[in-house]
């Protein structure tokens, strides 16, 4: 077991050495993960992506100017070139300028940021809603008004692979979507405004699927809202984002977006399953009920 793990490390090390040797990232050795925010599949996630890139390029430009001035100064104004130091040490005009210009840039950033925020914080006119109750360390989803409710936990394969090295029976590298797979996915229809009502049973958790845009805390005794409207069918994965104890890393979130008719079918299936297995779902008193 140790050898297997060690060879994994060595394999990656040698890839790294290769990449460093060639200095051509992306050709010799492609890093598997992205290095940027996903643009995502909701209006919120693409708004955020646009905002993120806008601010990123603004700070890049500021960085080029400031670092450029520093680098020029480091090369030109060094004693080894025999320069004599200037004696100026004060200039009110430039102080005013470099106070005012950043302020104006900030106003320029604040306007689109506020617009996006106002849009994100509009929870009205939703098409359907799901109560999400977090607990250590699983998610419970209750489709409001649909008589469908279930728990969602880390899937068995990831669970086997995440045991401490000498106890694990599966290599994490061999598990598809390691730590990002669950037993029961959240299924939602595309092009519908889905409202989540988030709460928790024990400690604070946070619901985060990057491709749906943003996260929100699930707080015991309180109900938080968030919403998304997915434009493309697909499977979107995320994780709990607020430290919630020992297995914080092991309570993923998987959302499956499907067409409306497929969603209806799925709901029907779920209802039948619930009927088969007795009233298990009814026994679950969610914190939402308690809070009321």
């Amino acid at each position: 077991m140790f050898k297997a793990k060690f060879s994994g490390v060595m394999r990656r090390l040698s890839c790294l050495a290769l990449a460093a040797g060639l200095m051509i990232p992306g050709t010799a050795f492609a890093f598997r993960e992205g290095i940027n925010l996903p643009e995502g599949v909701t209006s919120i996630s693409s708004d955020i992506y646009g905002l993120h890139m806008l601010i990123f390029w603004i700070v890049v430009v500021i960085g080029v100017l400031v670092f450029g001035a520093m680098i020029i100064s480091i090369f030109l104004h060094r004693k080894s070139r025999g320069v004599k130091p200037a004696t100026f040490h004060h200039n009110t005009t430039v102080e005013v300028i470099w106070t005012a210009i950043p302020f104006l840039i900030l106003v320029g950033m604040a306007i689109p940021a506020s617009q996006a925020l106002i849009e994100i914080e509009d929870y009205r006119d939703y098409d359907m809603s799901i109560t999400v109750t977090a607990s250590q360390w699983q998610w419970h989803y209750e489709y409001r008004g649909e008589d469908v409710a279930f728990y969602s936990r880390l899937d068995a394969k990831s669970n086997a692979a995440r045991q401490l090295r000498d106890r694990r029976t599966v290599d994490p590298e061999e598990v598809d979507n390691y730590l990002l797979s669950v037993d029961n996915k959240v299924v939602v229809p595309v092009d519908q405004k889905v409202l989540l009502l988030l709460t928790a049973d024990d400690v604070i958790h946070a619901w985060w699927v990057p491709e749906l845009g943003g996260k929100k805390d699930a707080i015991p005794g309180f109900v938080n809202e968030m919403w998304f409207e997915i434009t493309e069918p697909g499977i979107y994965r995320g994780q709990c984002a607020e430290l919630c104890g020992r297995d914080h890393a092991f309570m993923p979130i998987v959302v499956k977006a499907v067409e409306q008719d497929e969603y209806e079918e799925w709901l029907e299936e779920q209802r039948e399953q619930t009927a088969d297995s007795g009233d298990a779902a009814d026994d679950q008193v969610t914190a939402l009920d308690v809070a009321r």
Partner: protein
Amino acid sequence: MESTTATHDDHYHGPASGIRRWLFTTNHKDIGTLYLWFSLIMFFVGGAMAMVIRAELIAPGMNLVDPMFYNQLITVHALVMIFGAVMPAFVGLANWMVPMMIGAPDMALPRMNNWSFWILPIGFTLLLMTFFLPGGAPASGWTIYPPLVLQTGDAFPFLVFSIHVLGISSIMGAMNIIVTIMNLRAPGMGLLKMPIFIWTWLITAYLLIAVMPVLAGAVTMLLTDKYFGTSFFDAAGGGDPVLFQHIFWFFGHPEVYIMILPAFGIISEVIPTFSRKRLFGYEAMVYATAAIAFLSFIVWAHHMFTVGMPIGGLLFFMFTTMLIAVPTGVKIFNWVATMWRGAMTFETPMLFALAFLFLFTIGGFSGLMLAIVPADFQYHDSYFVVAHFHYVLVPGSVFAIMAGVYYWLPKWTGNMYNEFWAKTHFWLTAISVNITFFPQHFVGLAGMPRRIPDYPVQFADWNMVSSLGSFVFGISQLIFVAVIIGCIRGGTRKVDDRVWEGSHGLEWTLPSPAPYHSFDKPPEVR
């Protein structure tokens, strides 16, 4: 005290000998030395925890430790680095330098000074011994949010009490610094003639006094919630877990500036010296520092944008947070203007100061991005945040501390440190700090949450890069220790009073090494 010769009168005394010198000392230099050694030891204690954390994260899967122990490590790593390494280092530098820079013989409250140091090791003994208690050390993250922190085992009261002790130490240290600066300045040194390091520490000391009691109140409320049946933070009893976050960050955000304002002060001393040019825009620097301190009190909720705040609150905290970029920018621009058309040399303190300037600015940029609420909904509690605050704390605060140590070490010891090994330390540190923390921006943006001991496989490559960088960073710090010890033991040569060609300020008018009592007679300040 009209002694004009080298012979001393009865009141003059040198240090006691042996352990008594350190236990009972009331001398600002001895106490400064104690603070600095304590900070260095804690830097290695916290660093050892970071090494275990990065070793666990070098590859996906649980490779080394139990998740619960991992959570204990991240919690105590942060507490040790913040309260044990960074803050005591700044207090140590203040103890050494404040009397020497304002022309005073010693600190104003020497006995309290002794006490404020010696309760620090007590506080950390309480904290670190929790690893050996049933249930282990606190594992809730250093932010100790309820309800999670209330699940802590026997460690809980020790955590609360150690925070109380550390807070008392900080408050006493801060009071001492304020009283010293306000009362013991040499005649002629008006407030706007004080060195910038003195200014930044004066403002920092007020921040400490304002917010450490708030933290003490917050942890006391946790204590009564756990043991005495109150429900400040329990919804079932009419309380609110988010209330704790508001109180904690009302302390926590000024705390961030407590760890960076003295760094600004050190950089403002080092850059003019090695540029051989006066600090550009002294008054603007003072006002910018004060503005940052003021703003630090009205931005706290930007640490908790995802708790579900009203939109008015989100907008307010976004705007105030963005506003901090203005005075911070003013400081950066003034430092660049100080370098501009100077005659720079690149001794080790200057190298650390320049690295600070580049890398702290990068941390500032990611901070500005985090201020944008909609974007923060994505960044929040991801590794992007980890990258951000490590950029402002490691190449920010820690590099400034290292710049300050290399800058003043010859004055303290009378010896020059080994420039070759100091520069080796610098380059290894500066390169590895970027290899460690820059990739964390990538995995954070790609969706990796913070505070997880194991992660999806697609984050593996950059995590390995980060871990390898952190090991180099950790090992490089041994060079730092070797250079310091080498310097104390004689260094490469004796230094004169000025030490640096471009040095300025009262501390450089004292002999090297500085005498046990700094200024027996107040110096003249023009």
